[in-house]
């Protein structure tokens, strides 16, 4: 956030990539793309390319981490070395560890883990190409992959970010906006209950601006949710036609 520059990010009410303030980037979602994983999802979101895979419920290893009341949900957000301009060294860095932690917590709210005590569910998300907003793209894809794996879920998790650029609250920051903008608010919302299960913010927002950003993100999440549902339907149709 907040790198200085003379770049004007909004001109004549349009953003540099031509979007209106409350417009999402293009999103494509496909469920069931991997053969080994129990559930999977490939998602493109603007320039982001994200692959999610789910294994489980399965035996919890190492055993001493298992929980007698519910399944343990592990989430691994991982950037491929070639996903960013400067090669990302393999292995978890501090940023990945934090994103994995809060994303797991978001999913724990919806997956009926108590149905599978002593087991674990592994959610792996590979960021193949990164262009701002990967954590929301990853979590949105992971939610579809969990549903594709047939895991019982209370609701779908849909993640969208809003932010502030050139003093204006906008939806779904792209890379330039993320670098030179003034605030970013990644959120994840449950469609049926309206609950917020992931929320971060950094930058500079007044209470009013936060309200505007949060409302905008929640509104947009409905569109993303439709794409999540459609992806799962397409998958079942395909299966049916085979």
């Amino acid at each position, binding site marked *: 956030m907040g790198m200085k520059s003379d770049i004007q990010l909004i001109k004549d009410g349009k953003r540099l990539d031509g979007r209106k303030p409350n417009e999402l980037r293009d999103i494509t979602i496909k469920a069931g793309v991997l053969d080994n994983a129990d559930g999977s999802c490939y998602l493109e979101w603007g320039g982001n390319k994200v692959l999610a895979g789910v294994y489980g419920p399965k035996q919890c290893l190492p055993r001493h981490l298992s929980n007698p009341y519910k399944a343990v949900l592990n989430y691994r957000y991982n950037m491929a070395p070639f996903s960013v301009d400067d090669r990302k060294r393999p292995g978890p860095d501090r940023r990945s560890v934090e994103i994995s932690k809060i994303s797991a917590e978001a999913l724990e709210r919806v997956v009926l883990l108590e149905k599978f005590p002593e087991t674990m569910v592994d959610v792996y998300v590979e960021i193949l190409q990164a262009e701002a907003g990967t954590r929301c793209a990853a979590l949105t894809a992971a939610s579809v992959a969990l549903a594709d794996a047939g895991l019982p879920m209370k609701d779908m998790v849909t993640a969208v970010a809003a932010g502030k650029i050139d003093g204006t609250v906008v939806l779904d920051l792209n890379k330039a906006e993320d670098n030179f903008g003034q605030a970013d608010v990644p959120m994840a919302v449950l469609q049926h209950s309206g609950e917020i299960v992931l929320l971060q913010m950094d*930058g500079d927002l007044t*209470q009013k601006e936060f309200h505007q950003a949060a409302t905008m993100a929640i509104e947009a999440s409905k569109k993303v949710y439709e794409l999540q549902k459609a992806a799962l339907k397409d998958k079942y149709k395909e299966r049916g036609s085979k």
Partner: protein
Amino acid sequence: MSVEEVALEVKGDYVRQLAAKGMRQDKRKMDEYRPIKVTPNFIPHALGSSYVELGKTKVIAGVSMAVGTPYPDTPASGTLMTGAEFAPIASPLFESGPPRPAAIELARVVDRGVRESKTIDFDKLCITEGEAVWMVMLDLHVIDYDGNLFDSSSLAAISALLNARIPKYEDGKIIREETSGKLPVSKKPVECTFAKVGDVLMLDPTLAEEQGMDARLTVATTEKSICAMQKGGSGSFSLDEVEGLIDQAFKKGKALRKLL
């Protein structure tokens, strides 16, 4: 599961029962902090430091500095790095070893509060553009752990930064004995953390309350703006709840800022 973990689980259940009746173990109000004590410059040999007690939670923040090359995209700006160590001395729940997710999250949320408030004027930390800048290293050392590390650590962090001095730099060498002024720190971002236990929202959770909570929200504010937020835990908040907590964070933030 260790004895300590079992005991903590029991305490967490008790916290939930109390909360359902609108009560807290230590009889605090829902929007009340435990006693806070800030001791700036606790480690006088360090460039900046502070020791904070928040109830039984005790944290030391220390500031070190070194000269390094700037990032290519900000060639005229100093840098900040924040680390947190959950020393095993602080709790039977901590173990030695590389920082676990919770310690990483703590360091990153404290870092974000400091960084995004733009309290440090990084441009003043430039020595030679593109070549040499001051690297500020902020380290959080938890020595006694009874919950709410976010608020105690961020208080210690900003307090340490406020009393930090920059050593002299001459002919490519750092002269630690002499100073070339104070670290340019202009604002006092503070973090307020709320736990949601069932339907109850409570400020400044103890370890037992953190164990019993469903979710957690940390809001970092300066006088006028929110500069960072972090939700944690497997529970959720409604947007109304979040906005209410932001409101509270602004109010409580003022009180915290007076301790600095």
